[in-house]
């Protein structure tokens, strides 16, 4: 029954995507054309495949996950197509690849369930860390790192036969592996970490050896910040570690310690790194250096303001004026063309997704599944919040993608795998 409801919602979301493309074409003076059909087919195959995988291997999974993901993907893809049709045709392949990864995930877990992931937790840690470090590979190797917009978080694989490059952001997948590791690690250690106290005066702190993971998290995040100059990814990783420690132990101490480390790390970063300074000053007053550091934020504000309540209409705004409109700033493009109505709809969809995710965590029967569901939900929620806060000027702009919506195959793949894992966990609790 719930699968049929999922199919209905999914069909609506897919039609929304096709309608979006049709509207873009309409404003360009075209009528229904191959692009609309291609979108319908791609979305149909991608989300249809994940839907069928749910039917076969996780029939009791929550029916809300996939339609929300498809809804966000439809709006995001419409804007990506509207900004750059060439990027959009690449993104169609990304949808197929991401769906394949999600189907593969469900297939691998078909018999033993998510618990099997615990067995390989150190493998996941190793893979996660390796993926994070991958962009540091020298430029001369056939598989090498690449610096884009000052951040080294890309990996390029030279394909000599077709003389093309395959680029991906390993950090996007690393966060999924690291979440699995953390969930598994904490499921074993949380009792010890929560109960063993040592008092220094009035302050009760955990055993020093239990502080280890916090420090590791802080150092790893800082390493990412230093070596890859990626503020967003480091903030995301650090928030994930701290949030999961809190979820596992219920101890505010970890949050407080994390906040102190953020302040210290942030201060050091602010005084040491130019690119952090530029982003902070662009956040405080984007118009002070309008043509320089503040340009992207200012263009985002112009887009949002021009969108007003109901937006310019799809295809009728100028989101192409915003730097990185198809990736980090896709939300500003939505705000311009769909207005405040569209902005609120997108934010509401993330709230719904996060609510469903935490609901799965709350209902999960064992610690590992709880922590995993919570962790995966935290990844999506915090990543969305970080970039939305950047666009909406509540926080300096840090380069992370908006899950499901931004252009980018790695991000899409990670997001779809998260949906598959959350679906599988919810299935295991209901069956």
């Amino acid at each position: 029954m719930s699968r049929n409801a999922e199919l209905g919602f999914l069909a609506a979301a897919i039609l929304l995507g096709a309608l979006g493309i049709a509207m873009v074409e309409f404003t360009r003076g075209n009528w229904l054309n191959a692009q609309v059909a291609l979108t319908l087919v791609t979305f149909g195959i991608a989300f249809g495949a994940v839907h069928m995988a749910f039917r076969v291997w996780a029939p009791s999974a929550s029916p809300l996950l996939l339609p929300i993901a498809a809804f966000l993907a439809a709006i995001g893809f419409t804007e990506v197509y509207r900004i750059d049709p060439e990027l959009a045709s690449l993104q169609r392949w990304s949808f197929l690849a991401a769906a394949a990864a999600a189907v593969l995930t469900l297939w691998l877990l078909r018999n033993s369930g998510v618990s099997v992931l615990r067995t390989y937790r150190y493998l996941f840690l190793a893979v996660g860390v390796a993926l994070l470090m991958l962009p540091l590979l020298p430029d001369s190797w056939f598989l090498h790192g690449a610096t884009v917009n000052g951040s080294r978080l890309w990996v390029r694989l030279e394909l000599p036969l077709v003389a093309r490059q395959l680029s991906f952001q390993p950090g996007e997948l690393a966060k999924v592996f690291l979440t699995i590791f953390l969930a598994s690690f904490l499921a074993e250690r949380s009792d010890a970490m929560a109960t063993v106290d040592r008092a220094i005066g009035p302050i009760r702190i955990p055993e020093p050896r239990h502080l280890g993971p916090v420090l590791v998290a802080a150092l790893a995040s800082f390493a990412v910040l230093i070596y890859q100059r990626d503020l967003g990814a480091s903030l995301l990783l650090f928030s994930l570690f701290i949030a999961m420690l809190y979820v596992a132990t219920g101890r505010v101490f970890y949050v407080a310690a994390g906040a102190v480390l953020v302040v210290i790390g942030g201060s050091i970063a602010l005084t040491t790194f130019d690119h952090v300074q530029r982003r902070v000053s662009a956040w405080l007053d984007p118009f002070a250096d309008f043509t320089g550091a503040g340009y992207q934020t200012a263009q985002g504000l112009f887009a949002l303001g021009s969108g007003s309540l109901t937006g310019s209409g799809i295809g009728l705004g100028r989101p192409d004026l915003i730097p990185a409109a198809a990736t980090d700033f896709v939300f500003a493009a939505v705000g311009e063309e769909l207005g405040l109505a569209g902005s609120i709809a997108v934010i509401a969809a993330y709230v719904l997704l996060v609510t469903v995710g935490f609901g799965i965590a709350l209902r999960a029967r064992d610690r590992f599944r709880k922590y995993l569901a919570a962790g995966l939900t935290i990844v999506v929620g915090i990543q969305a919040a970080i970039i939305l806060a950047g666009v909406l000027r509540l926080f300096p702009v840090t380069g992370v993608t908006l899950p499901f919506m931004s252009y980018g195959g790695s991000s899409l793949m990670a997001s779809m795998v998260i949906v598959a894992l959350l679906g599988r966990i919810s299935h295991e609790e209901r069956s």
Partner: protein
Amino acid sequence: MNAPIRRVALTIIAVFAILAMSATYLQAVAGPSYRDDPRNARLIAWRTGRERGTIVTAEGVVTARSDPSPDDAKLFRRTYPEGETYVHTVGFTSVLFGSRGLERTRADDLVSDRDSNISGVLNALMGGDPRPRGLRLTIDHSLQAKAEELLGDQRGAIVALDPRTGAVLAIVSTPGFDPNALVGPDGGPAGTALEEDPAEPLRNRTINGSYPPGSAFKVITAAAALESGIASPSTTFPDPLELELPGTTSTISNADGEVCDDGDSVTLEIAFIRSCNTTFAQIGMEVGALGLVDTAEGFGFNESIPFDLPVLPSRIPEATSFANDPPAIAANAIGQRDVVATPLQMALVAAAIANDGEVMVPFVVADVFRSNGSIESSTTPAVWRRAVSPATASVLRDLMERAVLSGTGRKAAVPGIRIAGKTGTAEVAGSAPHAWFIGFGPVEVEAADRQIAVAVVVEAGGNAGELATGGSVAAPMASQLIATYLAG
């Protein structure tokens, strides 16, 4: 075990709530200020990039059209094929200087509905035409070109109307400029040069030029005398060489420094034909401030003239402010001192006399048409106000015809056609006089015949300089205009 998960969930949801509030603030509250920020490049695209409707003259000569932009398939570029000829009326729409003229006042018709999202989409869904509408003007292209040619490089203005409908047949202000130079983002230097030009090419003198009307105002003074019954054309007045103004040592004399007629007495008719200041100052003082102001307001002074473009009201002071000041009454009665009028207003004065005393609402947009050419709406001629009775209008027609037959307006004559008119030579401190002519022709018409009323003003004497008079400079131009229109 679940409590920390709940707290984290609530925290993240609270963050999204704050994000939603921020979006609301940025888009709904602060939105307009970001949208209208001059650094917002969208304004540039919006102002000039949208498709706008075509503007054509009465005969279909294209004065403004949108062509697909060569740079961006979705954008359009506005061009004005007739250049200067229609610049003040059609106006322009520019990246840097906004919109003027009809491009501004009729933007709702000219700009596509497609960008006004909800209403545009609804309209399109209901089978409406989403493309912008065009405007057909009342302007006669050959007459407009003639008017532009007549003014040449002189500063001034010409307004020609159909007196029975109020339709504008020609409306030219000089100097003009090429609007095409201002359209694009590279129009800054050209626009700045225009703004700084002392000849004020950006000003539409036909509706925003305030000139003392001089003796052309005597039509109104005569109308006031006739309407109040104080005088008829045969009423006589003393004919001094210089008229002493009561309570002062100053005097008023005629333009040629001579007596008006025989130095003894002169009729209103002779004084009108010869445009005698000494006589009209007396008539004005007999009519009084109230009569002058009432009559002038009857023609539209001190009112906003309803028009397709905003018109600067023509001014005569309130009657109470100069009712007890005979020298002021005398000076105002001959169109000097505090009386100022726009060329459009003076054209309406001539048209009202031609039209049995009724002032029609002037209009320059005849039809609004859809992209397929069908008419969406047409302007219906309407009476704005009654200036004078038909009887007074008839007497004034006769006086004005005599002024052209044998008086100051002789050079307005057109062979074979009965022309009526009144000259004006308005003294201005610090420059040569403004040369005026207002008039119309033919005096009598059948319903099917053409009739035209004109107002011509040449600023500071034009090429004639200090020697300029309304009769020598403006009247010949009126003659050519009327002949051109009636021949066409």
